[in-house]
Each structure stands twice: as structure tokens, then as C-alpha cells.
């Protein structure tokens, strides 16, 4: 097991270096000059000379690999530089934005798990019932509706028309409900369908027939024998989903003016705030890869056979 984790950790570092380097190049070949953008925003009349000075100061004149190495060395010490917009340390700002994002991601995850288990199991155990067919329609809508549209619709319905929750705001659980639901719908829809089909697949397995022949009660067969065997493939999906969701909060947070890391990144992109963008990319990539790794480890721990078959675990 430890050998496996070590191997994965080395892969992880390679991926992180690759991603950050790519993002570095991308922002470098983009036609907008960050120094110029920064000057124009902060001083109405910026001279060529002033811009040139800033460029020098930011190290933008250095060759790209030198820039990257310099950034990487600092980043490894937790120093991502200062935001060009606020002039505060990027690390500090990102850390202060994280709780807001984690709140809606956490709530979304709870919603996803609860909805998936309840609806997925009901659909599988009542295959082709009215409920199952309705769910099919709703989940197809759920995966195909874009986040921002769904967010606007929910806002319009529950905040504007019914006035059940405030339109915008931050601080209480009530404010977090709509963004969390928006974030949860697409993933719930696909995971409900996945759980349903995994369960149906397991329903015809020999060990289920044998459990029936041993006289095990129906409920126990559904939960212990069918459900538990349908879960491991879901864990991999969840590991990926958490990463996607944290990265995907950008849109939802913008719709709901939610002061999390997503809207922070969107603002940084519009402002060409390079240090923030680079830090954001690194942190997202890190979360993404770690979530995947954790899901795989959990999966291996849950599945004794897999542990043995991949001999190096």
C-alpha cells in the first residue's frame, strides 16, 4: 500500500509541475501585457517608462523559464507574490476566500450523497415504476442544464418570486442553500443514474441469487449485497467530482455573488492579475489530484480483491 501511495505521489508532483508550467506559458503568450494593464488601471496616464519599470520589477523581461523557476521556488515556500489589484499577499487572500467556497462545496456534497442514495436505490429497487421514469427525465434535464442558467432560475424562483431566501448575501446557511443546490444538481443527476445502473447490474449477479436462496430478507439483500457492491465505482466518480466542483464554483459563485475562491479567480482573470491566476491554477490542480488519489486509495481499501490483484499494494 505505501509503495502504491509513493508511486502516486511522484506522479502527482509531475502533474503539478506540468500544469503550472502550461498555465505560465499560456498567460505569457496572451496578447495583453499584465504590466500595462496594471498601470492603466491604477494610473490614468501611464507613461511608457512607468510601464517598463514595472515590467522590470515584476520580472516580466526575464526569459520564461527563469520566471517560472523563480515563481516555483517561492511557491514551494508558500509565497505566491502579491496581488496586482489589492497589493496584498496572494496566499493570504486565497486562504481568506476558501471557507466560503468550502461551505457551498461541503453542502453540495451532502446534498449529492443524500439524493443519490435515496433516489438511486429507490429507482433500482422499483425499476420501470413511475418514480423511476420520472427520475430518468429529471436527471437528463439535470445533467444538461448549464449551471449559470439553473442558478439564475433558482434565484428568480426562490429569491425574487417566493422571497424564501435573500437574493444575495453571505454569512448564514440560508444564503448558501441556493448556490449549493445549483452546484449539486448536475453531479447528483449523473451519480443517481450511475448508482441505479450499478445496482441493476449487481441485481442479477450469482451472489444475489445465492443470498436469496439462503433466505436473506429483501431489505438486507438490497442494502448489503446490491448497494455495497454498487458503491466502489461511485467513489472514483466522487473523487473527480469534488475537484470539478471546487474548480467549477467559479460560475456559481459569480451568479450568486458568493465571495469564494471561484469568484476571486474570475475577477483576477478579468484584471489580468497574474500572481493570483498562477496560484489559483496550482492550488486547483493540487486539490484535483489529491481528491483523485484519495478516492483511489479508499477504493482499494474497500475492495480487497483489487488490493491483491495489483500486487504492489
Amino acid at each position: 500500500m505505501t509503495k502504491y501511495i509513493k508511486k502516486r505521489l511522484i506522479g502527482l508532483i509531475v502533474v503539478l509541475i506540468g500544469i503550472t508550467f502550461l498555465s505560465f506559458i499560456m498567460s505569457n503568450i496572451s496578447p495583453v501585457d499584465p504590466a500595462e494593464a496594471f498601470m492603466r488601471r491604477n494610473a490614468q496616464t501611464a507613461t511608457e517608462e512607468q510601464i517598463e519599470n514595472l515590467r522590470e520589477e515584476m520580472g516580466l523581461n526575464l526569459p520564461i523559464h527563469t520566471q517560472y523557476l523563480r515563481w516555483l521556488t517561492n511557491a514551494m515556500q508558500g509565497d505566491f507574490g502579491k496581488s496586482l489589484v489589492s497589493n496584498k499577499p496572494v496566499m493570504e487572500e486565497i486562504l481568506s476566500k476558501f471557507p466560503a467556497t468550502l461551505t457551498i462545496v461541503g453542502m453540495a456534497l451532502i446534498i449529492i450523497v443524500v439524493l443519490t442514495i435515496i433516489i438511486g436505490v429507490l429507482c433500482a429497487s422499483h425499476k420501470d415504476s413511475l418514480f423511476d421514469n420520472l427520475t430518468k427525465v429529471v436527471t437528463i434535464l439535470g445533467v444538461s442544464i448549464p449551471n449559470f442558467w439553473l442558478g439564475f432560475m433558482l434565484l428568480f424562483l426562490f429569491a425574487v418570486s417566493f422571497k424564501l431566501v435573500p437574493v444575495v448575501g453571505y454569512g448564514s446557511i440560508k444564503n448558501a442553500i441556493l448556490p449549493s443546490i445549483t452546484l449539486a444538481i448536475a453531479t447528483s443527476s449523473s451519480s443517481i443514474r450511475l448508482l441505479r445502473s450499478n445496482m441493476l447490474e449487481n441485481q442479477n449477479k450469482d451472489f444475489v441469487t445465492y443470498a436469496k436462496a439462503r433466505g436473506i430478507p429483501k431489505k438486507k439483500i438490497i442494502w448489503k449485497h446490491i448497494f455495497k457492491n454498487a458503491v466502489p465505482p461511485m467513489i472514483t466518480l466522487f473523487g473527480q467530482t469534488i475537484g470539478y466542483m471546487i474548480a467549477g464554483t467559479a460560475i456559481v459563485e459569480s451568479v450568486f455573488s458568493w465571495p469564494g475562491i471561484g469568484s476571486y479567480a474570475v475577477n483576477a482573470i478579468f484584471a489580468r492579475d497574474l500572481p493570483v491566476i498562477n496560484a489559483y491554477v496550482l492550488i486547483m490542480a493540487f486539490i484535483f489530484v489529491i481528491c483523485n488519489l484519495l478516492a483511489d486509495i479508499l477504493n482499494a481499501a474497500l475492495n480487497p480483491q483489487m488490493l491483491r490483484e495489483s500486487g504492489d499494494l
Partner: protein
Amino acid sequence: MSKKILEVENLRINVLDGTPLVKGVSFRVCKGRVLGIIGESGSGKTMTCKAIMQLLSKKNFDISGKIEFKNRNMLDMKEKEINKIIGKDISMIMQNPMTAFNPMFKIGNQIIETLMTHSNITKKDAYDIGVKELEKMNLDRAHEIMNSYPYSLSGGMLQRIMIAISLMLTPSVIIADEATTALDVKTQSLILSEFERIRDNDIGLIVVSHDFGVIARIADDVIVMKDGEIIENGTVYDIFDNTKDDYTKELLSARLLRKEVS
């Protein structure tokens, strides 16, 4: 004539669209005797067994006739009553031991689960009974087996575990559907000797096979099935020595042929 335990009378199984799979099958299972069911692939042997075990969903099949156990027709019973019989009074040994156990749970868990479903005992007691039953089956290191996952045991071991499970609740009928087919010849022979012991325990045993060798070795009575019907029945001597039926002769000679070849 020994005491009858289970009687199947005019059993018919149709797919809901009307296609008949089993067309009026009747036979009885008696205490301490082995009933062999033989027939070509698709002749309805498994369907008949599944009907007895109540494994066929009413959503997919239309079942009529009588499956009489302790003087009551199981086809008329409520689910609750059925649950008390299946797995306890009538148990089954499955065809493929390698896939019959839930891969995510240890063998002990699945043995304990079965015991606790049918009797009011503690987990600790169930574990002890499980160990004892495994030892009865000539399985050494029973504690180790209880704590093993199915994938780490061989097909022959798993098949013997299944036999132990089928015996541990002292059933009156055991159904073994192709229970030796997936095993190598040596293990097959060991399992057949276990079946002989089951018969000596005053249990009615149904052995399904398309192998005449297996049937010849352990069956007392034999029914021959074809296309969902019984085309011949009698004692094992009637069938093997004096069959009048061409189909049975064909099956027999196919068997003899195979023996010569191998």
C-alpha cells in the same frame, strides 16, 4: 416407500408473453433419497429448481401448479411464510462456487448472516456454529476460512463451504443444481461423497446434472427432462438398464461415447 417431503405437481412456468418453459412437471422428493434430474441444455432443469426455491419473480414469470411442502402449496404462501422456509427447510447449492459469495464480505460474515436470519442466536454463537460446520465438512483451519474473503479460496473449498451452509440449518430438502460441473474431476468426486453423506442424514436431495456419471453414482430415482417436460422417470436401475425411451438412450450413448474418447 420412504416418506415424501416435497411434491411438485403439474408445475408450469410461462414467460409472461406466454412462452412455456416448463410444461407440467410432477415428481416427489423423499427422505433419505436422491432424486437425479437429467436432460439436455435448455430442458428446464434450472427453471424447475428456481421455482421450488421461489427465485422466479412474478414480474417475469407466470407459475402454476403445486409445490407442496409439509402439506401446503408454497405457491399460495405469503412472502413472510416463504422466507421462513427458503434457506432453512429447503436450501440450495449453487452451480458456480466462485461467484456465489459476495466478494466484499468475509465468508464468516455470510455464514453468520445466514444463521442469524433463521435462528435467534448471538453473533458469537453463530460464529462458533459456523466453525463447527466447516470442520464437519473436513475443512481444516476453519477459523482462517471464516476470516477469508471468497476470492482467496479455491472453487472446491467454496463448494464445500456452500454445502456446509446448506446443511447447517438442518433442512429437509437440498437442491444441488450442477453443483459439480465447475469443478475438476478430483474435487468433483470429493463433493459427490459429501452428497452421499447428505443422503444418509435423512435429507431429500435433488441433484441436477447433464452428466449421467454423476447421476449414476448417487441418484436413487431419476427423471429425464426434455423441452420442459418429463419424458421418463423411474429408479436409477430402470433408467440405466432398461430404458425404453429413445431420447434417454441417446443421452446415455452420448455419455458412453464421451467416456471412450476421454
